[in-house]
């Protein structure tokens, strides 16, 4: 490269454009001067080394773990178990060796294969790898600690779990459904064996199963969450896009019985949204379910406060749909699929968690199918809203900007109130003017009416003295009248 610096102008030497490895293809600065093919090879050499180092580290940790486990077990003083312990250790060592070989083998078999690209995309940097392996180690330690409290049964479970994980390693190339089936079988077998052989009471079986699920799924998560062999990712993107396109849906359209004006309720709504978004960050199916349950509980509280009575399923489902629309939780479909495939089935079919999970599935199905009719809108309105030409109402900005902070929301609200006030003031002014005019009209009208009546019936006043003097004036023959009768006295 330094030679080229002598060159002037913008002339670019042909050789500079070519791949550094000299394979004849053109290179690219983004690939450090290699062509895409050579770059992939180079990159993978480096990555493979990294992976190898990581494996070695993991192996070492695992060995330490197992030793710690074994030593703590023996220090608990189960003398009669020493021989079996020795046996187990031996088998453990054997299996570990086997695994190591297998792991290397399968890892290297992928190099150069088409999967290379996928791998690249999946594990972008070794530091993330390391971080997850730290978490995995933490979970393993906890698992071992937990099993210690069960003595012999604990050992047995540990062995089974290890075997299962190893078996799953081979099955990584199988379809996700088959892997899911294996996991479900494993859950069932372990639980059964504990009950029948170990005589563990059911409540404890449940507890142990939770721990087993946590342990194995923390380890398997990387390989079975949103695997490339499925179209989960495509579905994720589709639903995400769909929810974005439905940003205009209001609580009124869904008949959501939640009044966000009440601060306590809007607080609950925010919490519910946070919970459902948090689901993606969990690795164990049970933890994901717990997020859904927490979200649902908040929804119920929000409804309860708004309606002042306990909520029913008729209220709950629309509200959950509204929360999902508002939150647009990341990788929704992947999470649902992952839970369906790898959660302990007894938990999913019954129990509170299962109930809320089912409701979430219904909500997602509704969002996927949603049309004008399901929102009580006309087809034209629906189409217009979907295409973004108009939004259903003015307060749209207030309700549908998830990024807006509280202040901005308040501002929108205040602006809205101000404009309403303005409108009302104008109306009052108009009315007042009208009233004024009415009053004027009224007085005018009255005056006119009075005038009319006055004109119609003119007042004729006769002179009063004339009529008094004339009372008897017409009696001309007054004198001719007989004299008035006189009273007479009768004697006898």
């Amino acid at each position, binding site marked *: 490269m330094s030679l080229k610096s002598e060159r002037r102008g913008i002339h670019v030497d042909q050789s500079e454009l070519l791949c550094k490895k000299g394979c004849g293809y053109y290179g690219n600065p983004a690939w450090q001067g290699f062509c895409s093919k050579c770059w992939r090879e180079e990159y993978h050499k480096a990555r493979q080394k990294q992976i190898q180092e990581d494996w070695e580290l993991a192996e070492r940790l695992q060995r330490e773990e197992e030793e710690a486990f074994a030593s703590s077990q023996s220090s608990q003083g189960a003398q009669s178990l020493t021989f079996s312990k020795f046996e187990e250790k031996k088998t453990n060592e054997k299996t570990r060796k086997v695994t190591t070989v297998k792991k290397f083998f399968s890892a290297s078999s992928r190099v150069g294969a088409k999967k290379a690209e996928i791998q690249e995309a999946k594990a972008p940097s070794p530091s993330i790898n390391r971080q997850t392996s730290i978490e995995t180690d933490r979970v393993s330690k906890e698992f071992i600690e937990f099993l210690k409290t069960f003595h012999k049964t604990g050992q047995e479970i540990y*062995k*089974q779990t290890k*075997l299962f994980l190893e*078996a799953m390693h081979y099955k990584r190339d199988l379809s996700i459904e088959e892997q899911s089936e294996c996991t479900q*079988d494993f859950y069932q*077998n372990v639980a*059964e*064996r504990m*009950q*029948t*052989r170990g005589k563990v*009471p*059911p*409540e404890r079986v449940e507890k142990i199963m939770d721990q087993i699920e946590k342990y194995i799924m923390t380890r398997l998560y990387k390989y079975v969450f949103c695997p490339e062999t499925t179209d989960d990712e495509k579905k994720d993107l589709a639903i995400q896009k769909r929810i974005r396109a439905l940003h205009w849906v209001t609580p009124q359209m869904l*008949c959501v019985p939640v009044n966000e004006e009440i601060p306590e309720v809007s607080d609950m709504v925010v919490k519910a949204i946070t919970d459902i978004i948090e689901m993606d960050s969990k690795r164990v199916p049970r933890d994901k379910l717990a997020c859904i349950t927490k979200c649902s*509980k908040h929804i*119920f509280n929000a409804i309860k406060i708004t309606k002042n009575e*306990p*909520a*029913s*399923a*008729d209220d*709950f*489902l*629309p509200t959950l749909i509204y929360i999902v629309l508002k939150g647009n939780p990341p990788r929704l479909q992947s999470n649902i699929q992952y839970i369906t495939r790898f959660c302990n089935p*007894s938990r999913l*079919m*019954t*129990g*509170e968690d299962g*109930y*809320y999970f*089912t409701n979430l*599935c*219904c*909500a997602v*199905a*509704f969002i996927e*199918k949603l049309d004008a*009719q*399901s929102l009580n809108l006309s087809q034209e309105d629906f189409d217009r809203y979907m295409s973004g030409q108009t939004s259903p109402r003015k307060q749209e900005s207030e309700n549908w900007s998830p990024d807006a902070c509280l202040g901005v929301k308040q501002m929108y609200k205040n602006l809205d109130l101000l404009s309403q006030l303005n409108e009302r003031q104008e109306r009052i002014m108009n009315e007042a003017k009208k009233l004024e005019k009415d009053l004027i009209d009224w007085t005018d009208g009255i005056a006119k009416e009075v005038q009319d009546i006055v004109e119609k019936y003119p007042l004729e006043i006769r002179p009063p003295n004339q009529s008094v003097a004339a009372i008897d004036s017409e009696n001309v023959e007054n004198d001719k009248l007989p004299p008035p009768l006189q009273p007479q006295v009768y004697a006898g």
Partner: protein
Amino acid sequence: MSQTAMSETYDFLFKFLVIGNAGTGKSCLLHQFIEKKFKDDSNHTIGVEFGSKIINVGGKYVKLQIWDTAGQERFRSVTRSYYRGAAGALLVYDITSRETYNALTNWLTDARMLASQNIVIILCGNKKDLDTDREVTFLEASRFAQENELMFLETSALTGENVEEAFVQCARKILNKIESGELDPERMGSGIQYGDAALRQLRSPRRAQAPSAQECGC
């Protein structure tokens, strides 16, 4: 029975659904049924939408786990996942609303199509207390129930009349089906789980003595 004094011990667990139009009082029925248990329990936090209760049916302790469902027409097409693994269902209509009665056929179709074949359904004409506003006669509804092979009761979530009865009758019929062998709790999706390991061994020695040896890797 190996029952101890523990309240959580039970022989079977059934998943029940409450279906029917919105406003027929599904949640109230559930509430009325569950509340009795929780009456004295001051820190009862479970919402009414989901509840469980252990009842004694002919000497067997059955834990009912009841799922309330959304009844609005617009959700009908998406609520199919509710039905998975339900052992029994209360199909509710409102005796004062012809509309809710007319919708029964649709609900029944869904239930028969989406739930397991052996689902036991009891028809509940709710709001029995509002007899003066009645729009659906007892006779008409019981004929409908007969034609569709449903059990039938008129209930009142307000007074509590026949509420427990409805759940118990449904559970009893499921138990009968299990005893007669018509229903196999071991089958996936039956909506029935065993509550007690001891009972399970008793019922199916085949499973107990052979915990899938082929899968045992040790």
